[in-house]
Structures are given as structure tokens and as C-alpha cells.
């Protein structure tokens, strides 16, 4: 779950990480009032996109009048289809240098990873490999001072700035660990006459750990249908084609989509209803797909922990209760396969043995 900048900064502040003084506002007038209070300010759209700056979502102003004008302009902008609901109005800080600092998870090392560079700012992705220091942190001991000093040495940082980092980084690490963050990114990390200040905050919390953080607000970037799917604990993404696809397992669902495209079809969605779903969940997954009114329904089941008879019974239940009018291509093999086929055959529904056949059949049905 991505957090808005102001929420990330709240978490930072709670861990003792310096952030600029600021106010969260929802209207143009409030933006003016905040500027009147804070003096020279920067106004920042609170949207969940990385390209906010380049898209004009950030403005520096020196008086309340300008603040209102710029706030109004930003409220009217679209960022990848997103609009601004809140603005963060912050005191302008005196930036001597823009650095980059992030903590994330290194899947290859199976450890927290520090990324640090003296070349922060808008184009950090372009920084040369040797100017971006990576340090996987041994999580049995956590981020120790020597690690910070060594990261600094590799960055070419010494003296008082190194001392600043020795104070700063362990706080970010603590926040990263305690909040179950997948990402805690500060870009730019501003070097000011008062030391290091987090001028921005990109924090992502691990969805699977949200239950441990009831105090966090719940934020979503999903469509209404995707939200419905989330409620049902289904992995669902809208894609825009006409063949609705339902499969069990992320890998095979992706492979099914790949195969649909391979044979010239156009998938309507990604829907992985997971392993071991019971009849209710399977029923709900089917109903959700039917509600999107696709041309063809492609079901690809290779039952492992998923039981074929449960899928078949769910299908029959939906057919009986709501009716299934559109053409269906149904592939069903694996655990309790014969029981599942028996259920479907009673209803006159044919199944395929092979994924290849089922996909080609589905694509054929759209022709």
C-alpha cells in the first residue's frame, strides 16, 4: 500500500527524521492561509505518482496570493488520470545539495537494502551505477553505525555530513522495519544548513502486514471492480479485451493470457482466484467475471490444492442461480478431476483436457 507523501512524512517525524514544517490543505483558500503562516512555501500535489514534479504538481511561491493561484492550477491538473484531493504546503527549505536515500527489500539477498547516492533529485534513475551505493543489511543485527560509515565512505562522504548520516539512517531503518515497509524512499534528501531533511517521502507498506498496523489509513489505487475483487480476496486486474479469463495461480493465469494473445485473442482481465478456494469464493469469482459482460468466458483449471469438483459445482450453482448465457471454454484437470467432470457433464458442459485446446477454442469463439 503506497502512502501519500504527507503520511510518509508523518511516519518519518514520529521516528525523529527531520521533515519540513508543513500543512495539509484541501482547498485553494486553505493553501493561501497556510502560505500566510509559513512564508515562502512549496505547494505539492498529494498524488500517488512518481512523475508529479515533471507534470507540474509542485510549485514554489512566495506569498498567499501566488499560493492560491498555484493551488488552483494544481487542483485542475491530471496525473496519469489521477486528480489532486489534497495539497501539502511546506516551508521552503534551503537546499545545498539533493541526495538520495532509500530502504527497500532485496529479494536476491533476502535482506533489507540501503540505496544511497549523492546525486538525488529528479533523474536519480539515470545515476551511474558506481554513484549509487547498495548495502544489504544483515537483519539479524540491524543497521549498525559501521554500516552507515561504510556506505558514506563508498559515497565519498566524510566529516560532519557522515555524522549526520550516522544519526539519520538508523532512524529510517527502524521505521522501515517497524512499519513493515517495502519501500521508504527519500528523494530528494535535502542537505540544508540545518543538516539533512527529508524533502519528500515515498513509503510503501507491505499489504500482507497491514493487519499489524491498524492505525494506518487504508489507501487504494484500484478501480471499483478491482476493489470488489479485493474484498473477495481475488487477484484481479482489468485489461480491456473481450475474453474473460479465470484460472488458479498467478503463473498459470499469466501464461493463459500469454497464450490467448499468442493465438490472436484479447483478454478482458487477469483473474487468479488462488489455490484451495472454496465453493463460495469460486462462485463469487465467477459472478464478478460475468458482471463485466465479456464475449467469451475461458476457465483454465489445473487442480492441485484447488479441487476440480468444487469449481464444477460453483459453476453449476452460478448457472442455475444467475444463468450463464455467453459461450464458455472450460479446461478442467487435476485433483478430483473425474468428480468435477461428472458434475459438469450432468449439465451438458464439455471440458477440455489441454490448456492449448481450451485457449484456441475460446479465441475461436470470439471470431
Amino acid at each position, binding site marked *: 500500500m503506497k502512502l501519500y507523501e504527507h503520511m510518509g512524512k508523518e511516519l518519518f517525524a514520529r521516528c525523529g527524521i527531520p521533515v519540513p514544517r508543513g500543512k495539509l490543505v484541501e482547498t485553494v483558500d486553505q493553501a493561501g492561509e497556510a502560505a500566510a503562516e509559513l512564508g515562502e512555501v512549496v505547494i505539492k500535489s498529494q498524488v500517488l505518482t512518481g512523475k508529479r514534479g515533471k507534470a507540474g504538481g509542485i510549485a514554489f511561491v512566495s506569498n498567499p496570493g501566488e499560493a492560491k493561484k498555484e493551488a488552483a492550477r494544481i487542483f485542475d491538473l491530471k496525473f496519469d488520470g489521477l486528480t489532486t484531493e489534497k495539497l501539502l504546503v511546506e516551508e521552503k527549505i534551503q537546499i545545498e545539495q539533493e541526495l538520495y536515500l532509500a530502504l527497500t527489500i532485496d*529479494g*536476491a539477498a*533476502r535482506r533489507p*537494502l540501503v540505496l544511497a547516492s549523492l546525486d538525488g533529485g529528479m533523474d536519480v534513475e539515470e545515476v551511474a551505477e558506481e554513484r549509487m551505493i547498495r548495502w544489504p543489511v544483515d537483519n539479524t543485527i540491524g543497521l549498525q553505525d559501521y554500516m552507515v560509515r561504510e556506505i558514506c565512505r563508498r559515497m565519498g562522504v566524510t566529516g560532519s555530513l557522515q555524522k549526520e548520516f550516522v544519526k539519520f539512517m538508523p532512524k529510517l531503518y527502524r521505521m522501515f522495519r517497524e512499519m513493515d515497509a517495502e*519501500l521508504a524512499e527519500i528523494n530528494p534528501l535535502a542537505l540544508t544548513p540545518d543538516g539533512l531533511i527529508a524533502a519528500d517521502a515515498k513509503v510503501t507498506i507491505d499489504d500482507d502486514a497491514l493487519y499489524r498496523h491498524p492505525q494506518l489509513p487504508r489507501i487504494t489505487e484500484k478501480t471499483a471492480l478491482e476493489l470488489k475483487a479485493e474484498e473477495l480476496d481475488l487477484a484481479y486486474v482489468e485489461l480491456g479485451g473481450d475474453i474473460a479469463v479465470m484460472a488458479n*495461480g498467478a503463473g498459470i493465469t*499469466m501464461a493463459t493470457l*500469454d497464450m490467448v494473445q499468442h493465438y490472436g485473442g484479447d483478454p478482458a482481465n487477469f483473474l487468479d482466484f488462488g489455490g484451495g478456494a472454496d465453493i463460495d469464493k469460486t462462485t463469487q469469482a465467477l459472478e464478478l467475471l460475468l458482471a463485466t459482460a465479456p464475449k467469451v468466458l475461458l476457465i483454465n483449471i489445473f487442480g492441485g*490444492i484447488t479441487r476440480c469438483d468444487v469449481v464444477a459445482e460453483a459453476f453449476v450453482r452460478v448457472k442455475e442461480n444467475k444463468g450463464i448465457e455467453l459461450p464458455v471454454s472450460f479446461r478442467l484437470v487435476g*485433483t478430483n478431476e473425474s468428480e468435477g467432470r461428472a458434475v459438469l457433464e450432468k449439465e451438458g458442459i464439455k471440458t477440455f483436457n489441454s490448456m492449448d485446446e481450451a485457449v484456441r477454442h475460446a479465441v475461436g469463439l470470439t471470431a
Partner: protein
Amino acid sequence: MSVYINQDTRVLVQGITGRQGSFHTAQMLAYGTKIVGGVSPGKRGQVVEGVPVFDSTFEALESHPADASILFMPAPFAKDGALEALEAGLKIIVLIPESIPLHDAMDIMAYARQKNAVVVGPNTFGLVSSGSSKIGIMPGRYFVPGPVGVVSRSGTLCYEIVGNLTNDGIGTTTVVGLGGDRVVGLHFVDVLKKFEEDPATETVVLVGEIGGSAEEEAAAYISSSMIKPVIAYLAGRSAPPGKRMGHAGAIIERGRGTFESKVEALSEAGVKVADLPTAVSPLVKNALDKT
């Protein structure tokens, strides 16, 4: 020969009294797996599918020595269960649960490293020494002995491909599910090394997907150190670009992680990359015919 497990591997089932735990205990026993005990705090004295249940792994091991453990508990309790198994001295831990918090997974992996133990998963179907022992939730009948080693990031897709092989009369030595999470215990390289060393494995199938850099690392290893032929299939060719993890994601991956980068890396390493899952079996047959 066997990789990681064989017919003598003694297995504990943690979370044996749950719905999944008891179901798959029966399935594993039916396959031939040597399950020596189950663990379910507070359920000591129960018997599940003929298997005695204990309050803790420590208690189980007092009377029933074991080598491996498979965990079926809900994700919030998986870290506790995994650490318990590791401290108790088990050397192979199979983590079935999905949705284990990433920081928990990192803690588990760090402790496993300390204990010189192998963690399979989390979010895996487990692993199987075909015809001898399965520690996992895969449908047993597709896993028949033969000369092919299979390692996969995804579950059902792996069954699909192994099923095709089986239908074509090609069996497997060992099949390992790495698990679909961002932090997992085994990576492709670990398992490829085992396959390269295993005299019974003649050809290797690698089932990957987009995201991360495990396939690129596998390609580097194959290129530098493998003699046995490797056939790959990668899912996600048609997937829209995923939502980025800040700049850090891009910085870490540095252009790796895409379908194209993985196909290129593997192809350059001499791996035959199948277009479709159904194309894997013929490529394997080809490779086996040559060896």
C-alpha cells in the same frame, strides 16, 4: 539419487489439525512420504491420518526424530512456526502459506542461514522427489520418476508443464517450487546447482515469470557452470508493466525483470525458451534424445 529429499526423509507437519494440514497429510502419506509426526499447539494426543500430534516441534522430536517440516499455519503465525522448526534443528522447512509479511520472511531466512537449513517458499507448492516423497501440496499423480529436474516460481503453471511431460511419457527426478513471494528461501541458482550435481537428472526445466532478477541470475549461472541442457518457459509476456516501487525498484532492477530481458539472458546462456507452456515438453524430448 535425490535432491534435498528422498524416500527416507522424515517429515513433521506443523498445523496438522487444520483443514489443509490434515488433507495434505493424507495426500502426502498416500504418495509415500514418511510423515513421522504432527504439531498443533494444544492438540497433543490427537491422531491425524494415523499420525501422532504433539504440542511443539521440540516435543515431537523427543520421540519422533525428523529431518524436514512442512507448515500449514495461517500467515500471521508462520514466522513463529518456522523459527520453532529451525531452532528445533530441522534442516528443510517447507512454507506453504501465502501472504506471509515480507519482514517476517526476511527474519525466517536470516535464521535459516544461521542454522544452515533450507527453506522452500513461502507461497510454494513444496518439493517432490518423484515417486519417493513429496513435501507439499502438488497433485501426486503427475510426479512420476524420470530424468528431468524441474524448478518453478509458480505452482499451477508448473503442474501444467509437468503434467504435459508426464502425458508425453517423460518423468521427473525432483520438482521444486521456489514460491511466488518477493523473499523466498531457495532461488533458481540453488536448485540448478543441485540438478547439475545430481546424476539422475539429465535435463532441467526452469519455469519463471516476469519481475525480480532470479531468471537473469540463473542465466549467469547456467552460462558459467552448467553442462546439462536447460529448457525454460516464462510467464508474463503479455502482462502490462507493473506498478513501480518508487525509483528504488528501477534502480535495483536496472532493466532486468522484464520479459524481454529474461528471455534474452536465458537465450544467451544457451537455454531454449519455449513460446508456450505446451512447447516445453517437445523441447525436453529433443534434449533427452540428444543426451
